[in-house]
């Protein structure tokens, strides 16, 4: 009888005991998070620190700067140059984490953390406590392969396998060797920080580090679908983005 009670007690309390043994209570990131800018008067500890400068290797920096100059000149003429957004192509990792005012949704389980961006309905699947593959073994794509683990109260996500045509941070070029590390940590019950580190030994002189801040959306917020099925922008023969008008 006593043995039965002991086994029953073990079954009931084992999960909690295991968590206690691990020494930490994992924060639950599950929910919808909107971009947090921290306006005037907000708590400075919640505002993200300024980003580290983007330093490209000279052979990549020159064409990058030239491109930026051409973009500025086009904007002065009232024109926008061809780009992925005019073609309605998703942003991929890491840019999808912060698109305009669109929120992200995080669904956290012990085996997988899923991150969904409202813009373009982009999805990152983070497999917990699995080894990362060699970069050359991951099929290049928009989201690559992400694995995660907890370091105390911080969810660390390692992503490789982003193909070079995917929109880069501030339009930076990147090679197949790019590695993105997200460090997600709740700095308060309502504010989440994601410190993103981009390493690319081919393109970058040093890693890029920047932090995004998110605020919990109201609990009843329902994510809105986003399928790009009415893109009226097109790129003309000169590489300029135009708006297709409906004739009548």
């Amino acid at each position, binding site marked *: 009888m006593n043995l039965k009670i002991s086994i029953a007690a073990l079954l009931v309390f084992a999960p909690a005991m295991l968590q206690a043994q691990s020494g930490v209570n994992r924060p639950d990131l599950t929910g919808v998070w909107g971009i947090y*800018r*921290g306006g005037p008067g907000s708590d400075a500890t919640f*505002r*993200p620190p*300024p*980003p580290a400068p983007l330093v490209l290797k000279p*052979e990549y920096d020159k*064409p*990058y700067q030239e*491109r*930026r100059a051409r*973009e500025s000149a086009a*904007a002065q003429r*009232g*024109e*926008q140059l*061809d*780009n*992925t*957004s*005019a*073609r*309605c192509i998703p*942003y991929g990792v890491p840019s999808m984490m*912060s*698109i*305009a*005012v*669109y929120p992200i949704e995080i669904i956290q389980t012990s085996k997988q953390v899923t991150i969904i961006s*409202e*813009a373009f309905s982009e999805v990152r699947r983070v497999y917990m406590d699995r080894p990362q593959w060699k970069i050359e073994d991951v099929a290049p794509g928009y989201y690559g392969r992400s694995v995660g683990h907890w370091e105390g109260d911080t969810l660390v996500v390692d992503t490789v396998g982003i193909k*070079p*045509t*995917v*929109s*880069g941070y*501030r339009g*930076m*070029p*990147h*090679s197949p060797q790019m590695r993105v590390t997200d460090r997600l940590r709740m700095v308060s019950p309502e504010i989440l920080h994601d410190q993103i580190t981009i390493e690319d030994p*081919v*393109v970058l002189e040093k890693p890029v580090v*920047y932090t*995004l*801040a998110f605020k919990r959306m109201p609990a009843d917020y329902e994510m*809105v679908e*986003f399928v*790009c*099925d*009415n*893109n*009226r*922008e097109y790129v003309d023969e000169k590489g300029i*983005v135009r*708006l297709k*008008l*409906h*004739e*009548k």
Partner: protein
Amino acid sequence: MRILHAKRLQVALVAAAILALASPVWAHHSFTMFDMTKRITLNGTITSFEWTNPHAYIEIDVPDEKGAVKHWSIELGSPSILMQSGWKFNSIKAGDKLTLIINPLKSGQNGGFLSQATLPDGKTLNNGPRQEPPPAPTQK
């Protein structure tokens, strides 16, 4: 050979970056094609309201003072952004008479970006929140 390979990789990466230079500040495109310093008013009848991504559109027939009708295509934000300022998919419908304040296309064509809509019941709706650039990543 190795130098040649490296050069080829560099060219490929730069080419890839050129297409990828989109600003994540706006989900879809910049507003360069619209003259955001100009506002014009259109009074007309809706021919269709498209609740779509990456943008919603109002198609509207606008008669001039002589009675000649010109057709305009007006771009709005996305449904997600519009919902933040009170729009719904059925806020307006074909046949409704509206007053729109728009930022016109710089090209002079009959198109523009919505600034404010006055609905048949007198209610006014704007075009979603005016975003400031997020703290990071920022665009120069």
